[in-house]
């Protein structure tokens, strides 16, 4: 099968959907001729024109509000936030408006809105450009949340996201943009709420988010040589979360590690841990462990590597866990 990058996969998904549906409008900054801060939108402005690929002022809060308005008025908005670190600026629009509006209006409106935002890590840009903040959104009912880790998932989930009549938080990862993977040329869409078993194994379940999926695969390869069999699950969407697949896996392996780049405390790993605990308590032979971002501001420069989890830290945690029980 042909291979394309994660970035191209996103570009294709949007291009295809925009060709299909003339009501889709893109909002954001630097999304016109520049093609998006990370080039994901390259060529879209040329194809669809400035009305639909609408470069706008540096006003994230109002831009998100405009997106909601477009959605409520029967169009479909896709809003790009340049870094997920800036998502606090749109959180009121998302958490107090988009995610609740249908409910407090008793079903009288719908809000087909996709908010795309890349999380980042290890870019060396420091404390304000290195965060993964999915936990805030997961703690906001009324949202759908996707966080793909491969080009295939990115395309399939984004196409599904764009056809939702609900607000979707679509979290990409800057360091994944250039990664390649197989993506069919034919139309396909992936359901939300269906985790992917990246690799089967019998000793320990690793639930890995976004960038950590690759790291987990590497770690699992290492550990296999040591006789430890790792099952890796990529939830792909955090809302809905496919708890069932996770629980089934933990029932099989009896051990779980959750890993994400986001800060450890009150991160999505805690939630996923609880889901596993609640569903598979009797099968657990050891405590659930988290291999996550350190709870501190992220330094610029190479020191940043210390705060992020990676294959080695993950492998070490798994080894420890195997010794515990």
């Amino acid at each position, binding site marked *: 099968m042909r291979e394309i990058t994660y970035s191209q996969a996103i570009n294709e998904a949007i291009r295809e959907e925009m060709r299909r549906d003339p009501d889709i409008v893109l909002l954001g900054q630097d999304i016109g001729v520049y093609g998006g801060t990370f080039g994901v939108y390259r060529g879209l402005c040329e194809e669809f024109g400035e009305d639909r690929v609408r470069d706008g002022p540096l006003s994230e809060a109002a831009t998100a509000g405009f997106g909601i308005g477009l959605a*409520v008025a029967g169009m479909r908005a896709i809003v790009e936030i340049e870094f997920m670190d800036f998502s606090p600026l749109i959180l009121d629009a998302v958490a107090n408006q988009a995610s609740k509006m*249908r409910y407090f209006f008793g079903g009288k409106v719908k809000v087909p809105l996709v908010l795309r935002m890349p999380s980042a890590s290890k870019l060396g840009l420091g404390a304000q450009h290195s965060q993964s903040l999915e936990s805030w959104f997961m703690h906001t009912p009324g949202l759908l949340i996707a966080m793909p880790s491969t080009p295939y998932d990115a395309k399939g989930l984004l196409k599904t996201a764009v056809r939702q009549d*609900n607000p979707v938080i679509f979290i990409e990862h800057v360091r994944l943009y250039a990664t390649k993977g197989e993506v069919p040329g034919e139309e396909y869409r992936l359901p939300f709420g269906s985790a992917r078993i990246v690799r089967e194994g019998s000793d320990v379940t690793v639930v890995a988010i976004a960038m950590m999926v690759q790291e987990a695969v590497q770690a699992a390869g290492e550990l296999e040589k040591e006789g430890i069999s790792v099952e890796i699950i990529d939830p792909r969407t955090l809302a809905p979360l496919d708890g069932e697949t996770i629980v089934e896996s933990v029932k099989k392996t009896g051990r779980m590690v959750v890993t994400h780049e986001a800060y450890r405390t009150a991160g999505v790993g805690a939630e996923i841990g609880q889901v596993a605990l609640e569903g598979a308590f009797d099968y657990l032979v050891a405590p659930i462990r988290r291999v996550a971002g350190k709870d501190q501001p992220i330094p610029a420069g190479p020191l940043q590597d210390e705060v992020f989890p990676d294959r080695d830290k993950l492998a070490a945690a798994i080894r420890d866990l195997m010794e515990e029980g």
Partner: protein
Amino acid sequence: MTDEAQHAAAVSPEQALGWYRQMVHIRKFEEKVVELSGRGLVSGSTHPCIAQEAVSVGCISALNAEDLVLATYRGHGTFLARGGDPKAAMAEILCRETGCCKGKGGSMHLCDPDIGFLGTNAIVAAHIPIASGVALANQLKKTNRVTLCLFGDGASCEGAFYETLNMVALWKVPVVLVCENNGYAISVPVKKSLSVPEIATRAQGFDMPGISIDGNDIAEVYETTRRAVERAREGGGPTLIECRTVRWERHSALSAGFYESREERKRWQVVDPIPRFRTVLTGQMAVQASVLEEIEQEAEEAAEDAAEFAIRSPLTGTAQLEQDIFA
């Protein structure tokens, strides 16, 4: 001739009487809500638009049936002025199943897309960019529909308001922004929150028209909005209209006083748009007092009917709890 009388001169007696009827209906409705709130029937609090009826009625009557409206928690009057069903509104305020939002929104969230009313909101200023996005959608779809957005003086201090001014002016979005400057944001008087005496001045920095008018002069509100709507419809872009008005005695039915003098609290009665407009009607338009009394009676009955309807409707039940989260 007063300003008011002069402005009203351009208006037909039917239209004038229609305005009066709407204002009185809103007034009676809101008085009923306050009464029901006093009886503990209103969930949470409620924010009467008493004394601001001329704004709602005046500007909404300048719209076409196809146009769209968004407003704030103090927006019962806008809902009714737009033709919203008072029964459905009252039932919503009392959180009944028959409410326009199935009783899940409450007093601060009225909505009825069938009449182009895209809802009221309880986060100050958040609906200003949303309304402008609605207007942008209509611009892109070339529907010729104009969107009207009402908000308060307090809202005009929020970043979302200014960001929106820039964007709508830049893109010539067909939105009319109506700021109801009632002098207070809860307890904070405008002189403590605004660096300029008139909110309309804000528009100057954005290259869009900003007009400050007497919001209790309904004919002026109507005429100013009509021109702004026309301008928007013709592609001329947005307008900011400041309607200077006076708030009813308290921020909400439940809120406390402390911050203003007794006279200040009664000031709304001095500028009350309803008696003011009644003078115009009975004066230059020679409407008989009995006609006005009839309207009053009818409005009282409508409010009473709405209240009865609401009270008799069942409170929204558990079956509704998990509905309408996702589409």
